[in-house]
């Protein structure tokens, strides 16, 4: 076989990028669907956290009004770290990260692919936690505003989380390191998500909620951009 020289063919570059991106996402989803280990762990953990909150906070109906958002987002934040850790650990342990790095695609494919599949997992957990919570506490959590906040919050969370997870799994202290790195940096997101969620749950006027939604969007944009820019430095030796 002679060495064929490939030239970058501009019109075909984007479809190739998207094809590789989709391949990464599909691979994560398919692999997880087979074993369902990560999803079940995240779910069980999330439900346990809600249960613990129930006893720890002794909520009456009125108190619950103000605390629901906090409980939900703490739950998502903690269950999220399980997912992030697990998602990157799979790559690291079997050397698959090298396999991804060897592929002749832009590094950002790895970042966006992992981040998007992490997003799917987080939303899957939310899709189960929200109805369960609604039933357990007789609150309707299915308002469009709230769902929007869950989406925006999850996007920002996985944007930073995926990047930090790829650093954390390369350290000796990998499991405990991710929350330590992630939580201080993700606080503005959590604050905005909780306040916006409460706003929608209490049906506050939209002008009151808007600053929080803006903050969420700003956070998402800034951190997706920042993560995208530094990801190369995290994976290239």
């Amino acid at each position, binding site marked *: 076989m002679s060495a064929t020289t490939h030239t970058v063919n501009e019109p075909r570059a984007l479809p190739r990028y998207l094809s590789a991106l989709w391949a990464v996402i599909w691979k994560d989803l398919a692999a997880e669907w087979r074993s369902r280990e990560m999803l079940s762990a995240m779910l069980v953990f999330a439900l346990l956290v809600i249960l613990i909150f129930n006893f720890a906070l002794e909520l009456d109906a009125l108190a619950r009004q103000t605390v629901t958002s906090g409980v939900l987002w703490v739950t998502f934040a903690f269950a999220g770290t399980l997912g992030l850790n697990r998602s990157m650990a799979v790559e690291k342990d079997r050397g698959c990260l090298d396999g991804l790095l060897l592929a002749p695609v832009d590094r950002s494919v790895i970042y966006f692919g992992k981040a998007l599949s992490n997003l799917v997992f987080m939303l899957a957990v939310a899709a189960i936690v929200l109805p369960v919570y609604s039933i357990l506490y007789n609150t309707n959590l299915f308002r469009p505003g709230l769902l929007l906040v869950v989406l925006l919050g999850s996007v920002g969370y996985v944007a*930073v989380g995926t*990047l*930090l997870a790829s*650093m*954390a799994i*390369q*350290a*000796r*202290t*990998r499991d405990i*390191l991710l929350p*330590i*790195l992630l*939580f*201080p*940096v*993700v*606080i*503005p997101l959590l*604050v*905005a998500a909780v*306040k916006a969620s409460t706003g929608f749950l209490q049906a506050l006027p939209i002008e*009151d909620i808007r*600053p*929080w939604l803006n*903050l969420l969007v*700003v*956070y998402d944009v*800034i*951190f997706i951009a*920042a*993560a995208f820019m*530094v990801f190369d*430095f*995290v994976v290239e*030796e």
Partner: protein
Amino acid sequence: MDAKPRWLSVLDVVTALMLTAATIMVFFYAPMEAVMGPVQKVFYYHVAHAWVGMLSFIVAGIAGIAYLRTKNIKWDIVGLATVELGMVFMLVGIVTGSIWARPIWNTWWTWDPRLTTTTIMELIYAAYLMLRQGIEDPERRARFGAVYAILGVVSVPLTFFSIRIFRTIHPVVIGGGDPGADGSFDMTPKMLQTFLFSLLAFTVLYADLMWHRIRLGRLAERVEQLKLRLSQ
């Protein structure tokens, strides 16, 4: 680079003099504040330390960017030095803030934006050090440290901002008095001079300690090299 540079010795002396002068100014030059009394003097130290803590943070971010661009290990040494120092200064800032707050607001702690944000910054400092501790390869350690420093610096303004909106929309009153207030007082010209001078003195202290710490870092590198040579 073995012998201590002469300019560093000069800086040591200058730092010591400035700190002494600042202390004298705080206790003898600046007048006693009418409402708060002697405890107000803590304010000069508190702000100076918190200011250096924030300056360190910015330096850490800059060092991070510089390292990623140049891959020169000296920027990593700067980054580590500034985080270590920043952590200490910030901690003193937080504690002195608490000491000042207690008699004024009748509480050791308040969740106001500035205090909360500085605490989070302290946690980011700690996380940075823990990240470095978990990585063996020096090049990777430097790279990851740089990346985290940058992310940390980017997040802090957002954190401050988010808590600020949090507080203005839902002011929370804890204990007696309103912690949302700055505890501000009007500064007479003498107070202002003392205030600015202590800021300057502690900034010089920061520079002095940074120089020492960076030197220490470079000497440590040198020791590693020599050890390696001997083992061959």
